[in-house]
C-alpha cells in the first residue's frame, strides 16, 4: 500500500470513528420524549410521555396500560424499564445532573434525597392538581401513602410545602406465618400472637417442636430498623419519636433501651432463626416459602413472591405484636412505589393526565390483580384477595419515618441497625448501643449546628 493510500485510509478511519463517537455521545445525551430504551428492534412511535421505571415485575402491565391509554386518548406513553433498582437510581441521579430526566420518573432514595430533587427544581409540585375539584384526586389515595409524597410546612429540609408524587401502589411490612407449621407445633393456626409475650411463647413452642421461628432479611439494616420502628412507635408514640429525632430525647432513654432489648429477648427465646442477621431477604423468603421457617417478617410484596415460590403455601398474616397499650400498634409502611413529574418537562400536562388516569379504579385494579401489589387507590382495594386485604386493612396503622417533620442522620440509622445485629448475637449490650447512638447523634447535631451557624 502506498503512503498516500495509507494516509487516505487513516483520514477516513479517523473521520468515521469520530463520527461514530459523536453519534454515540449524542445518543447518550438524548432524553425525554425522544429516547428509546435499548433492545427495541423497530423505531417506536414518537411518545407523548416517557416514563422511566425500575419495576421489572410490573413492566408487562405497564405496557398493557400504555396501550389501553393510547386506545382511549390517542396519547402514546412509552414505559422504559431500567433494572435493577440500583442501576435505575444511578441513572436518575446522573440524568438529573445533565437535566435529561424523562417526563415521569421515580426516586428510589431517602426523604432527604427526594427533598434535594425538589429543591434542585426537578420535581413538579402536584398540590394544585391534587386539590382541584374539591381534592377529588387527593381523596382517592390512602392517606398514609400520600403523606410520603408530601412535605409539610416547616419541614426540616426547607422544601416548599406540597405534594410532589403520585403513589402507584402501597405497602406495609407485617408478619406472615405458616398455618401448617403452627398446627404441627400444637399452636392454633387461626390465633396468631397479638402481644409480645404471646409472640415469645409461640417462638418457644416452635423451638420445642424443632421448627425454625422468624426469618427476615436482616442483613439489610432497613428491615431490622423497620421492626425497631414498629416497637418504638407502639411504646413511645409519635411525639417522643419526633423528640428523639429532633435531639431532645436521647437514645439512652429507658424506652429506647427497651426497644433494643426486645431483640435480645427474641433471640434468647429462640424466636429468631439461626443466622438471621446476615440473611438476605430473598433467602428468608425462600426459607419461609419452602416451609422451613414458621414466621417471616416481610412486606406486601411477599404475597406475590410466595405465590411464585410455593402456590400451596398455607399462610396467614398478623400485625407486629403489641408491646404496650399506651399507643396503637404500628406497621412500617406507606407508598410502595410512586412516580414524580419532571418539572422541566415540556409535557407536564400530558404526564399529569396520564398519572391521573393510571390511578383511577379500573387501572389500579388491573395492576393489583396482575401484580399482587396493594393499589394506592382506596376504592380499588375493596376487591382484592384475602391476604392482600389484611395488608390493606393495616394501612390504618402504617407509620413511616418520612411522616415525621425530622429525619434521623444516616450514620445513626446505620449504627442502630448494625448495633441491633450485634445485640442479637450478644456482641453488644443495649446500654453500649444506646451510648454509641447518643455519641453519634451529638456529633451529627454539632456538625449540623456548625453548618447552620456558617449559614450553609
Amino acid at each position, binding site marked *: 500500500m502506498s*503512503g498516500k493510500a*495509507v*494516509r487516505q485510509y*487513516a*483520514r477516513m478511519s*479517523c473521520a468515521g*470513528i*469520530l463520527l461514530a*463517537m459523536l453519534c454515540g455521545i449524542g445518543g447518550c445525551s438524548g432524553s425525554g420524549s425522544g429516547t428509546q430504551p435499548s433492545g427495541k428492534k423497530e423505531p417506536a412511535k414518537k411518545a407523548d410521555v416517557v416514563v422511566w421505571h425500575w419495576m421489572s415485575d410490573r413492566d408487562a402491565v405497564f405496557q398493557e396500560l400504555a396501550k389501553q391509554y393510547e386506545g382511549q386518548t390517542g396519547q402514546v406513553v412509552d414505559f422504559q424499564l431500567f433494572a435493577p433498582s*440500583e442501576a435505575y*437510581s444511578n441513572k436518575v*441521579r446522573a440524568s*438529573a445532573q445533565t437535566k435529561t430526566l424523562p417526563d415521569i420518573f421515580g426516586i428510589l*432514595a*431517602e426523604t*432527604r*434525597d427526594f427533598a*434535594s*430533587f425538589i*429543591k*434542585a427544581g*426537578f420535581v413538579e409540585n402536584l398540590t394544585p392538581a391534587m386539590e382541584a375539584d374539591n381534592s377529588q384526586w387527593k381523596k382517592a389515595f390512602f392517606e398514609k401513602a400520600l403523606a410520603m409524597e408530601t412535605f409539610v410546612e416547616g419541614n426540616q429540609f426547607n422544601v416548599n410545602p406540597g405534594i410532589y408524587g403520585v403513589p402507584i401502589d402501597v405497602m406495609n411490612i407485617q408478619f406472615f406465618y405458616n398455618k401448617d407449621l403452627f398446627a404441627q407445633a400444637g399452636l392454633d393456626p387461626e390465633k396468631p400472637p397479638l402481644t409480645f409475650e404471646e409472640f415469645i411463647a409461640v417462638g418457644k413452642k416452635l423451638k420445642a417442636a424443632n421448627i*425454625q421461628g422468624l426469618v427476615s432479611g436482616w*442483613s*439489610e439494616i432497613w428491615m431490622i430498623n423497620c421492626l425497631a420502628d414498629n416497637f418504638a412507635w407502639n411504646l413511645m408514640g409519635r411525639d417522643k419519636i419526633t423528640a428523639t429525632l429532633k435531639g431532645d430525647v436521647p437514645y439512652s432513654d429507658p424506652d429506647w433501651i427497651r426497644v433494643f432489648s426486645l431483640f435480645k429477648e427474641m433471640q434468647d427465646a429462640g424466636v429468631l*432463626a*439461626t*443466622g*438471621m*442477621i*446476615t*440473611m*438476605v431477604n430473598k*433467602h428468608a423468603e425462600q*426459607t419461609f416459602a419452602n416451609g*422451613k421457617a414458621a414466621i417471616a417478617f416481610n412486606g406486601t410484596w411477599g404475597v406475590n413472591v410466595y405465590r411464585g415460590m410455593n402456590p400451596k403455601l398455607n399462610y396467614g398474616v398478623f400485625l407486629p405484636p403489641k408491646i404496650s397499650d399506651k399507643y396503637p400498634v404500628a406497621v412500617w409502611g406507606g407508598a410502595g412505589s410512586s412516580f414524580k413529574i419532571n418539572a422541566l418537562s415540556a409535557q407536564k400536562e400530558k404526564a399529569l393526565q396520564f398519572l391521573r388516569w393510571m390511578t383511577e379504579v379500573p387501572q389500579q385494579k388491573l395492576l393489583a390483580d396482575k401484580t399482587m401489589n396493594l393499589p394506592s387507590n382506596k376504592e380499588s382495594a375493596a376487591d382484592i384477595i384475602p391476604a392482600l386485604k389484611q395488608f390493606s386493612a393495616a394501612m390504618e396503622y402504617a407509620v413511616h419515618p418520612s411522616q415525621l417533620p425530622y429525619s434521623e442522620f*444516616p*450514620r445513626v440509622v*446505620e449504627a442502630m441497625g*448494625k*448495633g441491633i*445485629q*450485634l445485640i*442479637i*448475637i450478644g*456482641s*453488644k449490650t443495649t446500654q453500649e448501643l444506646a451510648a454509641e447512638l447518643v455519641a453519634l447523634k451529638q456529633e451529627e447535631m454539632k456538625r449540623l449546628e456548625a453548618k447552620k451557624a456558617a449559614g*450553609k
Partner: protein
Amino acid sequence: MSAVLELKKKYTWKDAPDMLTSYLFIVPALVIFLLFGLYPFLQVFWLSVHSWDGISAVKEFVGLQNFIEVIRDQYWWQAMKQAGYIAFLALTFQNALALILALLVDQDIRGGNAFRVIFYLPPVLSGIVVGLIWGWIYDGNYGLLNKVLEVFGQGQFARAWLADPKTALTCVGIIHMWKGFGWGFVILLAGLQGIPRELYEAADVDGAGSWHKFMHVTIPMMIPVFVLVMILTILGTMQIFDIIASTTNGGPGYATEVPVTRILASMLGSSRFGYSCAQAVVFGVILLIISLTQLHLSKKMKQA
C-alpha cells in the same frame, strides 16, 4: 545506524501533513481516554474536596474536611484492616495453592488441559452467584458444612458461620480464595512454562535434585511473576465487594465491612458523594503505596 539518523531528523513544515496523519491515528483513543478515563479520575479528586448530595447543583467546597473525617472514621479503618486480613489470606493460602497446582500441572500430567479448565472455572463465575452458593454451604440451619461436621461427629462446631463475628470474615475470605486461586494458577503456570528448559537440564548435569532445582532455578526465575501475582492479589482482594454483598452485606455489625462497602454506604446510604470520593482517594493512595512498596521490594530481591 540509519534508524538512529532517522530519529534525529529535523522536521519541517513539509512534514506537517504526515505528522498530522500520524496524530490523527491516536485521536480516537485519546478522546476516549480523556472522556472516560482522565475526566472521571479528576472528577473524583475534585468532588473529594466538596460536600455534595449527588443531586443538587451546588457543590460546597470544604477543603480537606472530608479527608480529616476519613482519617477519624473508625469503621473505615476497621474495613481497611478486614480487607487487609482477607488479602493476607489470599496472598498466603490462595497463592500457595495456586503455585502447588501450577507446579503439578506443569509436570505434563495426563489430563493437564482438563485441570487447567477446571481450576480456571471459579474466577469466571459471577461473585454474586459464588456468594449465594457458599451462603448455602455455610447456612446455620441446612448448610452443607454443618452437615459434614455432624457426619464426622464434630457437630459441636456447627454454627451459623456467616452470622458469627468470630468466623464471618474468615469464611468470606475462604470464598474469595476459592474464587480467586484460578487467576494465580493460570499466571503462575504461564510463568513456569516460560522458564527455559535448558536451565533445568544444566542443573541436572550439575547433579541438582528437585528441591535444589526448585529453589535455585524455579524461584529466582519466577520472581517477576510472583510480584505480578502478589500485586494483582492485593489489588483484587482489597477491592472485594460482590461476595460480601451476596453473603453478609458487611455484617454481622461491621465484622465483614470492607472499603468498597463503606464507600458505597457513604455514597448511596448517606448521599455523601464528596465524602465517599475522599474515601476512594485515600483507598487509591493506600493501594498505590502498597503496590510501589511491593515493586521496590521485588527489585531488591531480584538484585539479591
